[in-house]
Every structure is written in structure tokens, then in C-alpha cells.
């Protein structure tokens, strides 16, 4: 038996070392990566000192270009240069059309729920495009930090639905990242501000980015950020401001609706430039290149611009009202409004939001960086660098989850703005004698009709023991984890048979498709895939070993008797030995074996910590 290295009591098994972790703001227009270095969270620059990475990916016949260089060619090579891929994440082609966007891409949608964009480098999904951006950011971070990242926190709009969250996580998986948590963007911004000002109270976070809008109402109390409600629009942002300005230019310049891809890109670029200029000046000059090489000259006043965008800003106030109502609060109870996202630079946005909440909007942290900074702070905590930290984030699910019932109606199982993680069970029965399968359609949204909600997945429960109609009791448990992702489990109660669930995501990639992409990408040839699996299992083994050793050191004597401790340590030693070898299947098996042996111990530890947390209260009260 291998000798087990145990450190002296009171010392941690592995000397505590700072783990490299990063927060990533995967934005519609720009993306950023940040990390906590010497107790300070800051965004990390690329080799040329630039912090913002344009979320643009250009596909060539023999490679991929990401960021500034890709953005520079967006106008000249519109079909192969993908911008704003985030707006397409977790959506089907029909959805994208219904957003009414002018997208200069050629879509292919065969044999899959996920649209593919045709480029000279092959057909790509929005998930793969996002993975390229994540890879570039990770390299940027690892170069600056000088080491491999152990994990990342990726931010998503609070109002992202399950399919959009899952697509983001899939992109991270493709990029080979260990995702510690998907964090809601407004919550991340609150963390960045909260630790700065340290002010307890109720805050509103108004986050208008390039393509998404979020509003979150949260209470900060001694390091605990409790989101009370959230709302938004996952298809409304600065891009839409550009769109209305572009339409105004088209009207003024007499450009027809059937303008070409390159013309549309030039229009959007000039519209965006005019919008940005109007934050500083009263009028913006526009010089638009036409297809024949001549120019159209015009000028847009701030007043006209305000008129153009006001309907869009008003569209954000509806979700603000709803969020206040869901939180059970009036606008006057909000202490301050934090402005997040590049689009809050538009002065009219600040004015209208300030008016609505009756408070001067907070803009002291760069609205472009604040989300990445908050994510970095959370990543540092989740990586285990702050074992005694006070900070805790309690978030909510943004949309109600329900299932289809008779007549195309939706029955809500988990209402919106429920604190996550959450689980709710629902019982189903069969309606025919001998029925062995049952279909469940899961939806997300607030409306009563199935057709007005978003289809998330269809589940088939199979292997129900044949019984007379109505005799089977199938208990289906829907849970939403801390990433806001849905999981489903089912059990037939009278027989105890666990029914298999076949997941058919309505707009997502299947596990097989992701595996396929991993296999196909040049980065992961079969050999690499094996090596990657081995590395993954070894990392998991290290994690288990380290956690168990430090647990044994801290309370093994108190919670285990000699025999139990012997049992645990024998199994631990086995894993230590196996983890040195290179058989990932055996490592996985040993991890599972150790976890089984330790189950009672882990439970005792959790109960002990709960008892301790509550005993502190009784003491306080007697004081």
C-alpha cells in the first residue's frame, strides 16, 4: 500500500496556494476577462494593452481570426465575419427571423435544432463562434497571469433562458474551460459596486448592453447579495439603437431595403459611430460610402436621436415596473440605480431611468468593465481563494418553468423570481391501460398558452411498469441549479422504478453533437481527447483527495471513530495511487468508490456545519 502523506494537524494538507481564476464577460459587442491579483480585481489586457476584445470572429479557409483583426474586416467580408453571435445563442432559425433582424449571414439548418452559419471555413454554430471568443480571452488571461486557469466564471444576461444558458456552457466546454459558475450580469455588477461601497440596502441594477437588457432588484446585507427579482428582454440593446439610426439614415439617403450585405454593415457601423458621438456632442456628422463609391453626407442632432431611441428606452421601463412589483417594492424604496453596459452611455437612457427610479444613476465604475470585475471577484471566491469570505450570492430564476397540460395550456411548476437552487416535484399518471411511456413538454415563460411560451425540451419517460390506467404514479422532479440550468428526474412511486429520461432540447446541441464538435476540431484529435479525459479525471481526483485530506485534518478525529477513519483512509490511499497511473476509466471508478465510502462522513460534516451555524444564533440571543 502506498504511503499516504498526511500533514500535521492544524496544517492544511496542501499548502494554501492562490488558484488562478478569471471572470469572463462574454458580451454581444465586446468581451472582457478579469482576475483578482494582489487582492484587486482588474480587467486583463492583450499583448497590445487592449482590454476590450470585440466579439467578432472571422472564418478563413484555413483558420480563424478573433477580435480586432476580425472586426476590421467585418465590412469587407460580411459573410464570413460573425458579429453579435450572442444574439443567436440558444435560438432556432425561426426565432432569429422573428427578432426581425437584418443579419448578413447565410443560415443552414439541416438535421439539427441549432442554426449553422455558412462560411468559407465551413458551417459554424453560434456556440462554436462563442467558443472561439472564450479561447482567445483565456489565452489573453493565461499570458498575463502566467499560468493555467483552474476555473472561470462566465456572465450571462439575467434574463437568459435555459437554452441560452446551456449554449453558453456548451461554448465553454468546447473551449476546454472549467466553468465554476454562470453568473448573472447585473449580479456581477452589484458585486463590483457592493464591495466598493460596502453599503447595505436595496439597489436596482439597470444593465443595457449591446444586445440584451436586464433589470435586477437586490438586497445587500453583510456580504450576502440577495436578488429579489429580475426582468428584462434578451433581445433588446444598443444594436437596436444602431438599427433605428441606420433606418433613419436609409430614409434620409434614399437607400432601399434590399441593400447588400456590405452596405448594411457600413450603415450599422456609421450609425453606431453617430450614436457614440452624441454622448459628447450635440450633433453627429455622418459620411456614408455608397455602393458606387460616392458619399452621402448628413448630420443627426441629439434631439432627433433622442426621439428615435425613446420608444426603445420606454420598452425597458416595463420590465423595471414588473421587477419592482415582483420584489414587492415601490420605486421610492430603491436606494440607488447602478448603470451597467455600454448603452447606458446614451444620455437619454440615464435621464429616463433616473426619472423612473427617482434617483441619480450610479456610473462611477466603467460600465463596460464592471461586469467582468464582479465576475472575477466571484471566480476568486469559488476557486477557494477566500475560504473565510463573507460574500454569498443568492440569485433567482428569471422566467417561470412549466409543463404542457391538456388543451395546449401551461401549468407553472416553478414561478419566476424563485431563489435558486430550487426543486419542485409534479406527479403524473397514465391514461391508458398498460401504458409504459409518457411525454412531458417543458416550457419557459409567463403566458398561459404553450404557443406563447418558449419550448425548452421534450422528455420521454420510459420503462413505466404496465398497470391499469391511472394506477402509475410518476413523480417528476424539476430542479434549477445555481447556474440557472434545468434538470429533470423521474420515478415511478409504487414500484420504485426510476424512469429513463430522453432529453430532446428544442434549441440546443445534444451531448453527441458537442462530442462530435470536440472530435472534429483540430485542437482535439482522438489522442488529445484521451489525454484530455485523463487530465480531467486527474484534476477531479486531486480535488477529491485534497478536500478529503483537509476535512480529515480539521474534524476527522471528532466525527469519525477509529474504524471508520481506517476505512476512509484505506480507500483514499487507493485513489492516491491510481491517480498516478494513466487509466482515466479506473481513476473515475476509484473516485466513485471513495465517494461511496465517504458518503456518511460528508453528510456528518454538512450537518455539523449547519448545527454550528445555528448554535451561533442561540448564543447571540442569550448575550
Amino acid at each position: 500500500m502506498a504511503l499516504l502523506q498526511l500533514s500535521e494537524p492544524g496544517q492544511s494538507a496542501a499548502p494554501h496556494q492562490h488558484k488562478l481564476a478569471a471572470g469572463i464577460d462574454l458580451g454581444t459587442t465586446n468581451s472582457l476577462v478579469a482576475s483578482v491579483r494582489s487582492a484587486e480585481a482588474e480587467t486583463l489586457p492583450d499583448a497590445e494593452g487592449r482590454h476590450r476584445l470585440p466579439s467578432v470572429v472571422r472564418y478563413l479557409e484555413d483558420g480563424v481570426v478573433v477580435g480586432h483583426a476580425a472586426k476590421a474586416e467585418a465590412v469587407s467580408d460580411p459573410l464570413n465575419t460573425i458579429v453579435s453571435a450572442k444574439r443567436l445563442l440558444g435560438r432556432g432559425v425561426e426565432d432569429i427571423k422573428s427578432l426581425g433582424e437584418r443579419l448578413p449571414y447565410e443560415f443552414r439548418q439541416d438535421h439539427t435544432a441549432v442554426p449553422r452559419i455558412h462560411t468559407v471555413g465551413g458551417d459554424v454554430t453560434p456556440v462554436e463562434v462563442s467558443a472561439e471568443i472564450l479561447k482567445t480571452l483565456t489565452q489573453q488571461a493565461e499570458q498575463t497571469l502566467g499560468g493555467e486557469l483552474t476555473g472561470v466564471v462566465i456572465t450571462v444576461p439575467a434574463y437568459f433562458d435555459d437554452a441560452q444558458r446551456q449554449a453558453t456552457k456548451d461554448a465553454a466546454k468546447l473551449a476546454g474551460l472549467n466553468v465554476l459558475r454562470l453568473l448573472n450580469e447585473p449580479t456581477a455588477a452589484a458585486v463590483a459596486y457592493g464591495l466598493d461601497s460596502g453599503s447595505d440596502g436595496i439597489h436596482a441594477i439597470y444593465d443595457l448592453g449591446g444586445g440584451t437588457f436586464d433589470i435586477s432588484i437586490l438586497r445587500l446585507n453583510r456580504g450576502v447579495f440577495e436578488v429579489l427579482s429580475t426582468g428584462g428582454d434578451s433581445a433588446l440593446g444598443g444594436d437596436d439603437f444602431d438599427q433605428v439610426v441606420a433606418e433613419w439614415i436609409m430614409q434620409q439617403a434614399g437607400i432601399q431595403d434590399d441593400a447588400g450585405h456590405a452596405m448594411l454593415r457600413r450603415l450599422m457601423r456609421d450609425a453606431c459611430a453617430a450614436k457614440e458621438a452624441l454622448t459628447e456632442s450635440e450633433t453627429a456628422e455622418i459620411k456614408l460610402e455608397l455602393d458606387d463609391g460616392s458619399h452621402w453626407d448628413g448630420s443627426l442632432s441629439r434631439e432627433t436621436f433622442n426621439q428615435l431611441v425613446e420608444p426603445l428606452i420606454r420598452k425597458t421601463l416595463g420590465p423595471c415596473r414588473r421587477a419592482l412589483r415582483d420584489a414587492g417594492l415601490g420605486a421610492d424604496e430603491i436606494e440607488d440605480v447602478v448603470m451597467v453596459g455600454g448603452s447606458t452611455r446614451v444620455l437619454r437612457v440615464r435621464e429616463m431611468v433616473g426619472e423612473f427610479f427617482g434617483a441619480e444613476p450610479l456610473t462611477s465604475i466603467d460600465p463596460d468593465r464592471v461586469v467582468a470585475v464582479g465576475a472575477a471577484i466571484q471566480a476568486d471566491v469559488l476557486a477557494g481563494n477566500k475560504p473565510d469570505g463573507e460574500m454569498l450570492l443568492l440569485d433567482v430564476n428569471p422566467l417561470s418553468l412549466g409543463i404542457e397540460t391538456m388543451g395546449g395550456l401551461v401549468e407553472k411548476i416553478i414561478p419566476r423570481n424563485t431563489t435558486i437552487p430550487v426543486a419542485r416535484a409534479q406527479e403524473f399518471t397514465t391514461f391508458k391501460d398498460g401504458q409504459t411511456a409518457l411525454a412531458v413538454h417543458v416550457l419557459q415563460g409567463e403566458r398561459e398558452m404553450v404557443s406563447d411560451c418558449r419550448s425548452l425540451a421534450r422528455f420521454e419517460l420510459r420503462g413505466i411498469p404496465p398497470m391499469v390506467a391511472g394506477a402509475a404514479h410518476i413523480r417528476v422532479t424539476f430542479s434549477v441549479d445555481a447556474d440557472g440550468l434545468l434538470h429533470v428526474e423521474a420515478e415511478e412511486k409504487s414500484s420504485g422504478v426510476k424512469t429513463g429520461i430522453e432529453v430532446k432540447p428544442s434549441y440546443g446541441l445534444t451531448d453527441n453533437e458537442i462530442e462530435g464538435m470536440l472530435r472534429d476540431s483540430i485542437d482535439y484529435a482522438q489522442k488529445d481527447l484521451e489525454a484530455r479525459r485523463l487530465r480531467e479525471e486527474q484534476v477531479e481526483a486531486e480535488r477529491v483527495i485534497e478536500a478529503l485530506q483537509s476535512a480529515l485534518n480539521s474534524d476527522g478525529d471528532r466525527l469519525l471513530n477509529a474504524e471508520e477513519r481506517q476505512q476512509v483512509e484505506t480507500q483514499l490511499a487507493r485513489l492516491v495511487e491510481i491517480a498516478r497511473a494513466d487509466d482515466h476509466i479506473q481513476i473515475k471508478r476509484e473516485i466513485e468508490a471513495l465517494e461511496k465510502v465517504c458518503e456518511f462522513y460528508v453528510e456528518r460534516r454538512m450537518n455539523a456545519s449547519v448545527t454550528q451555524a445555528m448554535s451561533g444564533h442561540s448564543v447571540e440571543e442569550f448575550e
Partner: protein
Amino acid sequence: MLDFSKNYFELFGMPVAYVIDAADLAERYRDLQRVVHPDRFASASEQERRLSMQGSILINEAFQTLKDPMLRARYLLSLHGVEMGDGKGATQDMGFLMEQMELREALAEAKDQADPFAVLSTILSGIDQRTKGLVAQLTEQFESATPEQLAAAREIVLKMQFLQKIHQDAEALEAELEDAL
């Protein structure tokens, strides 16, 4: 897993009683989540992550139940062995039912009033007033919790469910009218 044999009150280390100190409950909730929440186990083994998620779910469920006066009453009744059933056992209090019908009518007509928001606001605060009255009644019934008092408490909870439904509908209408602005 957390000790499932504990009831929600025991989980929070509080006495099994209807009257509850909301601030104390929230404080205990935050302290429990501080040790159990998945964020505390993000870098732990898969097993610990799973246990922490289950524990965190239980604590959330317990908190939601105990902080809401109606859900807390239902939960207390179930601890006393009194079940609400499927909600079909409607209240027999004719006075209350008449009041409900009036509220429903007022709600149906609100949309066509000159200032529908003022009407809705009056309806909502009226419901809140009535609910407060019912909470006071519940407090009394739960004091010594004889079988007769528990039966009465069950009746009060049924009324609260009625009021809650109208409250939800009134808020939904308010949201609908605001969206149409």
C-alpha cells in the same frame, strides 16, 4: 444530505410556532446558506456539490414556507396532521363569500373606470387589510392548537388562498394595463 427528519422550524433552530420574527428568520436563512450553498462547494468533489445543492434547495424551500404567513400556516397544520386537501373544500362562511364576489366584480369593472390604477390600488390594499386580519386570527388559533382551533385555522387558510388568488389577478391586470400605456 441535511437531516431530513428535522422539520423546517428545527432546521432554522426556531420554536415550532406560528408567530415568527421575520428579521431573525432571514438572518438564520442567510447564515445557513453561507455554509451550505453550492458556491461554497464550487471547487469541491462532485458528491459534495450534489449534497450542497440538495441542502441549499431544502433551505430555500423552508425559508419560502416559513416567511409567508399563509404557507407557514399550511405547514404548521400539516405538522399537526391537518391537510388542506386539493383546495376544493371551499369555505362555508357566507359573509366572506359575498365579500369575495364583490371584490371579483370590482376587479372585473376596474378596467373600464376613469382611473383604473386608483381602483386597483384600492382593491389591493383592501385585500392586504383583510389578509392582515386573518393572520391575527390565525395567531390566536395556533396558540393552544386544540383540534377545534386547528379546524378553524384550516378554514382561515382557505380564505387566505382565495384572497391570494384575487391579489395575483389584480396584479396581473395592473401589469397588463401598464404594458398597454
